[in-house]
């Protein structure tokens, strides 16, 4: 087992996923300590720039958590996040960031169990991928 500890940035929406994360703690679900949570008002406000910036600053993975489609506090913010994800994932993979390093997940406020499972899953997956590789060595 390597001693690589992935750093994962989680953008969680204030109304669903963040509440789930809170409940997961209160419910004492076992969670790996590699996830850094950033609370945002809506998954729809997570600009692709935020995700790129997170990777540029050294994150090994980025996850966006939002409400299930139809449940968005702002009606359709999560749909906007859903529209961005495939294209962003494609751009990232062309820039040398494997698709598994970026995820968009729907986690309702009532799903602390799934929250803990998804986060632990992602940590394991990225741990097995290892640290990010540079496309080219810096000159």
């Amino acid at each position, binding site marked *: 087992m390597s001693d690589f500890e992935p750093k994962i940035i989680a953008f969680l929406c204030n109304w669903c996923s963040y509440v789930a994360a809170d409940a997961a703690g209160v419910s004492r679900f076992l969670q790996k300590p590699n996830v850094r949570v950033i609370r945002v008002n809506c998954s729809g406000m997570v*600009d*692709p*720039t935020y*995700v*790129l*910036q997170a*990777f*540029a600053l050294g994150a090994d993975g980025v996850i966006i958590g939002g409400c299930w*489609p139809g449940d968005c506090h702002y009606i*359709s913010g999560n*749909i*906007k996040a*859903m*529209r*961005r994800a*495939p*294209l*962003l*994932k*494609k*751009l990232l993979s*062309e*820039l*040398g*960031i494997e698709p598994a390093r970026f995820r968009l997940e729907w986690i309702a406020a009532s799903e602390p169990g799934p929250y803990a499972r998804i986060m632990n899953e992602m940590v394991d997956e990225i741990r097995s991928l290892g640290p990010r590789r540079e*496309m*080219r*060595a*810096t*000159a």
Partner: protein
Amino acid sequence: MKQGANKKKVAVYTATGCRTCEHAMVDLHYEVNPLTHWAEVVFWPYLLGSAWEDLNGEGRVDVCFFAGAVQTADDQAAAVRLRDKSQILVAVGACAAFGGLPGLANLSPAGPEPEAAPEPSPEMPPLPPLLPKVLALGSVVPVDYVVPGCPPTPPLLWAAFQAVAGLGTAPARLGYAASRLPGPVAEALAAGLLPPRGSVFAGDKAVCASCSRVKEEKLFRRVLRPYQAYEESGRCLLEQGLICQGVATREGCGGLCTAVGVPCRGCFGKPPAIVDPGAKMVAAISSTIDSSDAEEIACLAEDFVDLAGTFYRYLLPSQCLLMATPMTVGKHEDHNP
């Protein structure tokens, strides 16, 4: 107009590039002649056949216009040499300013050195060694001014010439450029002063600000390439499904390409307010996708070809958050190669 001793000594050089920037300088048409009244070109290998030795006799060069990306050891040596020799160093064109098209080589993983190179001969001189990464000029040596574009448009190039190689007199025929340039640059130019160091000879907003097309509510339905379908309806090209990068590109060109129906390719680099042009383009396109069905959206995303090569076409080595090499900062006097 003053003549003779007061003439500014000018050098022009292209590193790795197609030399179209040099053609653009000659393409200043009627302005080329007045240019010779106040500028004396002392080094221009492409046009005058100058050799590096020609620089030895000269004292300091006043202004060097440097085009082309830095890809080989020779390019790097040229950049350092010209920086040390010149009072003012201007990066001309997308390659020198941002890394340009040659910069897309950074997307391929660095391979082994090419094997079995032919025996060097006078007809086939050996290739200079490649650097590990293609770089913008500003990542190698400090740059004083930037004239973006592929190639730079004549009005902005002429404005840059007058601003940095002029004799401090009020410039001629600047109406267009002055209206596009950011306030401080235009004011300095009109007053015959040097613009603030680091100025970019282009606008501050995005190309959309000067694009003549009608922008309605955007709904992106499918990806098209310019040859596939183009209807001259005067409507925004992005709305029509063409990947136009005007939203993520610095203005100054006046929307030349979009006016004739060619989607913007982003040769002026990103405007200052945008952090990463690729991310901006992803946001601009995908938040207007006309579907709320995950599978349908994923299918649509599959149709896009070469996103990195499209969104970072001219600027991968300097303006892509994930692949950029930082710019060299500091005044050139502090610079020790």
